[in-house]
């Protein structure tokens, strides 16, 4: 038996929800966008990127994981929350090597699109410039670890949908990084395929198809004309191309 819809307030506007829905799911169902990177509609909440952070009753929570509660007052699209999201993006940008002009994902990249949407003008912090060699061993797919944001979407897709468990995160804290499940550590020595869901789910420019680079010119890409807050609500799976 389905319960009658209850509501919570998202930035002062009532949003209906059903028992078991998270704040982010209910907001999406009501056509309200809450920024996110590691959340995907086909997977359980991951709660690692913290971009979907909202304030509920004065406390910070991840809206992708927090069940909606009747009468809750949720703050999301406010200068304070967007400022905190911008700071999170800035930390992601300086922690890896995100050089958009030389990245094939530029214009299709959700990290970049969120930074546009939140008007991130500067990385603000000092860059780490980590040394992360690329893996070009696979015939159809290039791995550029420089851009990894540890959302684990490829890990989850490969394990839970493709049934291959090609990817994993290893180590902790600043030493955390993406690894490939092969004796050699190389993607070319796995049964990874360009048709795997894991090959097509990366929100940034880590997992890239070979031989299709710049088929769509810079300036004509997903988020060049349309902001992510619009694209994310249009597409059926909640993600851009």
């Amino acid at each position, binding site marked *: 038996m389905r319960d009658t819809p209850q509501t919570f307030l998202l930035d002062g506007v009532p949003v209906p929800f059903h028992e078991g829905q998270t704040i982010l799911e209910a907001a999406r169902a009501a056509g309200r966008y809450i920024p996110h990177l590691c959340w995907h509609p086909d997977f359980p909440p991951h709660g690692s990127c913290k971009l979907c952070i909202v304030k509920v009753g004065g406390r910070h929570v991840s809206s992708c994981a927090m069940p909606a509660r009747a009468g809750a007052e949720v703050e999301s699209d406010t200068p304070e929350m967007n400022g905190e999201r911008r700071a999170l993006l800035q930390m992601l*940008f300086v922690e890896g*090597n*995100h*050089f*958009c*002009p*030389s*990245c094939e994902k*530029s*214009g299709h990249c959700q990290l*970049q699109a969120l*930074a*546009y*949407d939140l*008007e991130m*003008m*500067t*990385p*603000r912090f*000092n*860059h780490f*410039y*980590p*040394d*992360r060699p690329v893996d070009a061993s696979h015939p159809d797919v290039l791995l550029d670890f420089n851009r990894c944001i540890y959302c684990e979407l490829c890990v989850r897709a490969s394990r839970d949908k493709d049934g291959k468990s090609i990817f994993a995160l290893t180590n902790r804290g600043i030493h955390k990084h993406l690894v490939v499940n092969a004796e050699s550590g190389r993607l070319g020595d796995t049964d990874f395929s360009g048709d795997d869901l894991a090959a097509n789910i990366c929100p940034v420019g880590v997992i890239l198809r070979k031989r299709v680079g710049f088929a769509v010119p*810079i300036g004509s890409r997903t988020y*060049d*004309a349309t*902001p992510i807050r619009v694209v994310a609500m249009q597409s059926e799976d909640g993600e851009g191309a």
Partner: protein
Amino acid sequence: MSDAPKLKVATVSLAGCFGCHMSFLDMDERILGLLERIEFDRSPLTDIKTVGRCDIGLIEGGVCNAENVHVLREFRRQCHTLVALGACAVNGGLPAQRNHLDVGQCLQAVYLSRQGLEGGRVPDDPELPLPLDKVHPVHEVVRVDYFLPGCPPSGDVIFKFLSDLITGRTPRISHPALHYD
């Protein structure tokens, strides 16, 4: 034409490719209207070599050597408002791709190890500025007031930014004008 004194603008390309300066010129004839409000001090456009007191300083490129540090600090001292113009000034950009490499090994690879360079040597003329071990965005060296990302920021974006700044509006570049590529 207004009688107000013209604002002084200085520009420089540090570890950049002059692409942002070319993009500046992409504002085409609008530069004539701008010149009724501003005049250039040190800039590749005037070939003036030292920077005087200025209202606005535009910095293209990151900081890759000792001379860049010197020039950048001089711009900061002399300019009321300092702007990081373009991807390299904002995050190091293309020159910063060498940051995970050892600069000594880079120099050896370029000047000694390549085929046909037997007997070569790393240039050590005292006139040459020493390279830094890493390329830095300008905000890691001096305080920066505004950032204009883009590789390069378009002529439209530079024009809008400067127009806002010189007429006292808070410059704001948002989607779809805001680009990192």
